[in-house]
């Protein structure tokens, strides 16, 4: 069966690590430039909205105040050093009107467009984004897993987001290897 899920996920991440620029353009102008050959996407992305699969001394159900039910990402930048932690990531983001298409850039951008004269990925930002109790905690930890013996963690800050956002314009991703 398919073995490409992780691959595509990573591709998506690294596409954005290339060079990106924001540009506002209305529908009419857009159609005159490239035609509307892309795709219109609506939906949601939910992370641990109802908890995750781990149940141990640290992770558990969301209705258990003694346990963390969000996702956790940690990384170590020095050998045998401590760990940066993005902890208790949970919530959802729903959107309507995210568009995706390939667009040719041959002008604008202070003259750089004519020099570039290639195709880029254009991500049309959705007008409406709704954050539902989206949150995460920035922390540092003493070892790789919170269930390790003698593990200690310092939480620096927790970010929580709820409500509607309006995003306009397009995100252009330029390939520049």
């Amino acid at each position: 069966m398919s073995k490409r899920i992780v691959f595509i996920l990573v591709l998506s991440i690294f596409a954005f690590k290339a060079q990106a620029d924001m540009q506002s353009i209305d529908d009419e102008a857009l159609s005159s430039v490239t035609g509307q050959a892309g795709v219109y996407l609506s939906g949601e992305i939910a992370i641990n909205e109802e908890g995750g699969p781990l149940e141990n001394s640290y992770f558990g159900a969301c209705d258990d105040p003694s346990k963390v039910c969000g996702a956790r990402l940690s990384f170590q930048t020095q050998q045998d050093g401590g760990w940066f932690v993005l902890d208790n990531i949970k919530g959802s983001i729903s959107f309507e009107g995210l568009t995706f298409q390939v667009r040719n850039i041959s002008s604008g951008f202070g003259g750089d467009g004519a020099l570039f004269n290639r195709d880029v990925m254009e991500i049309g930002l959705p007008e409406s984004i709704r954050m539902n109790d989206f949150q995460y905690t920035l922390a540092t930890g003493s070892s790789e897993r919170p269930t390790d013996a003698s593990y200690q963690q310092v939480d620096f800050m927790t970010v929580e987001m709820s409500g509607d956002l309006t995003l306009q314009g397009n995100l252009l991703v330029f390939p520049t290897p």
Partner: protein
Amino acid sequence: MRKQFKYLAVFALSSNVVFAEMQALDDEVMSSVSGQSGLTLDLEMKTEIGELAYFDDGKGIALQGLRLSSAADPNELAEYRFEFDILMDGSLALSFSSKNQSRFEIEEIRFVDGPGLASAANAPSLGGLFFDYKIDGSLLSYNRGNGYIGPNSVLGGLYDVAFNITEGRLGYRSNGNEFFMDGMELDVSSMGTVLGVTPTGELNLSLPNFLAELRVDALRFSNNPNNHGVSNDVNTGQALASYGSLWLNMDLSADLFIRAGGADGLQGMTINANTVINRMDMAWGDDTDWAATGYWLGALGMSGALDITNLTVDVMSEPDALTDPLKDYGVGLAFAFDSLSLNLRVQDFVLGETKASIDSYVASGTPLVNSMGGFDINLLLADGVYNLAPLENRVILQAGGNMNAGYQGIRLDTQLSLISPNNESNFVYIDDGYAMMFSRLEAYVDGDITLDVTSAGDINGVTYYDGLRLGFEDLAFGYRTEGMRVAEDTGDSNDLKNKQLQAGQRVDAFSGLTGLGGSPSLEGVLNGHITLGPEGRVGDEGITINADVALSDGFMAQFVQADGSGNGVWLSGLNYDVHLRDMKLDVTSEGLSIYEGESWSKMDVTDFRVGGKETGASFGRLVMESYEVASETIISAGGAGAVCIGGVGASLIDCEADNGRWDDRGEQGLTVAAKRHFKDKIELEGKRNRFTWEVARTGEGTNAAVNGSGLQLIFDNFTTNDGDGLTDDFGIQTVQNIDVARAPVIKKATGIDSNGVFGNKGDEKIMRPDGSYEYKARSSLTAADIANRPIGIAYRNQTQFKELDIERVNLSHPVGGESTLLYGLKLQNFNITTDITATPMD
């Protein structure tokens, strides 16, 4: 393609040994058997023919070692009874029946240079065939005088034919291994059959009422050369391993014309045929009792038409002999045609249905439990051009198969061209009354395919596996679509052709066993094999797959624009190796179950491009290596069902109370549930999980970038575990649901869109019955408006894992050396759900 009338070829018959025993019966005895009005003939015979050959322009195909005898003992006689009667109107009635199980077999099928020339024992051969049977049937030859008869005005006969075959066994044998249908039963009825010669000299076979039902109890495999046409191994007494059961039910009307002269030389034949499929059902059963036990995968309620124009048949030399002698595999039986058109509707495709349920559905239309929906398959094969290369349709059947596997086997030197200038070729999926068309499908295949029955072991350093081995040798292929069209299903897929075109996106759930499917466009060159062995993981029956497949010089689209430009997001310069070991396929109550004993692969993308597949700007090189053990996938019928988007709630009321949008996607659809275990690297065997992104290579930005010369970002040795770093029972679990469903589309700016339709910012797009649309303020939407939202493709994916552990993240350069960015990266307790609906962009 040449279309000449040629004279009929002559069969050359070389009969070395013929043994037949006939027992004469006097009239008195006959009358005691069949009554007073006819003739009864009891026939007992054992016949052996050394060689029967057909020659075409001096080259022949020879059936060697033909034998008709008793199936139980080839030294015993096959026994039949024939009864003849002349009816009152002068019609001839013949009935026939077997008195014991007979065997007809062909030991070798070879291509020969002349009649009677002895073949070397190890000369390339197609292999052998055998057919065991008991037959019981009748033939009525009507007295229609000597004039022209039938719709095609032929000089010939009008017949009613009916027979059934029981205790059947139809097998193919190569290099001592056998693959055969065991416990076969076939019922055939063909009333009003016309066989004759048209005024223009064509042989015509007309089958206006052809009904047939085939039941195969077990598809069996034997790797014991001592076995021949037996259900149980002669050494162990154990039942031979089985792939499962097969069932085929058909109701056809067909008209076949054969005229003399092929495409090559003066001799050969040309066939034209039109077939109307009134109804056809086909299914594969696993561990079934043909009733309530065991489960089936099948295409049910099929109907449509198949037309073939100027199919020529010739015995001829390998065309590669002149251009590429290394690929000259000798004389073969060549099939070529001007065009082949197939239009087929599959009413229901089921996964995990019982035979009792299927029978009830076929007999009385009882609703199915596990239907994923229906399909329309429309194909037009004809001469065409793909990537500027002219292509035609021809297949040359040659002897030998995979040359290393032994002297027997089948080789198909193949060139096929699927064209679609006016969207004649497409594929449509129908889900709960909504249809999704993969529009304007074009494809080609050009290269060699081999077919062998092999046994496990090494031959000259090449590993073979038990089963039916499908080999690919420099098989160039490609397919592409212009995008997708979605609308309500009207029952006629032509109605979809005028619907709005939507960009094509890769659908991961359709990626198939090797991970190569599901893209809007893919091309490359295939080498390797897929070997289908018997027995699954559940029960006694099923399929075991071992495969080593390499795709080279490929292009795979992840996304293709709907403007016909071919621009999109491409994996260019794709080289992909995939290896599967002991992949087990079973049909269960949940659907098609796939278990991978071990699999590893490497996908090396020279350029990840945006724009044209060869000219687009590149993000650099990507390499994905994967190593998994004991991963499992279940493909089942039914999609996401009712879901809450943008909120939380298990009911419409709860969902809307949380400001969500309740979306009921119906009963049908497709679900792919997978559990994958990424394992620790095995350096010596080249198995690991690693992702590499390389940029700034020598020659970057040209078509000659040198892989390995640039800066690499490496995510190395990622593995799964249960959050403890010790066990890995959970893996990464994903559930993907695919549906065709309605979804809201919001106008993003006031003004006219690309189709000239005006709308205010925030308005919703609402479809009209004629396929046009309007924008309406969301506050004014009625229930009818909501029911007429645009139809899109809905993907829902839930991914869960306890821990994904990346050992390290490195930066590497061939000159600057390697440095570690991260000494560890861990993702724990993830449960991500994405629910995306894709609709055309206006």
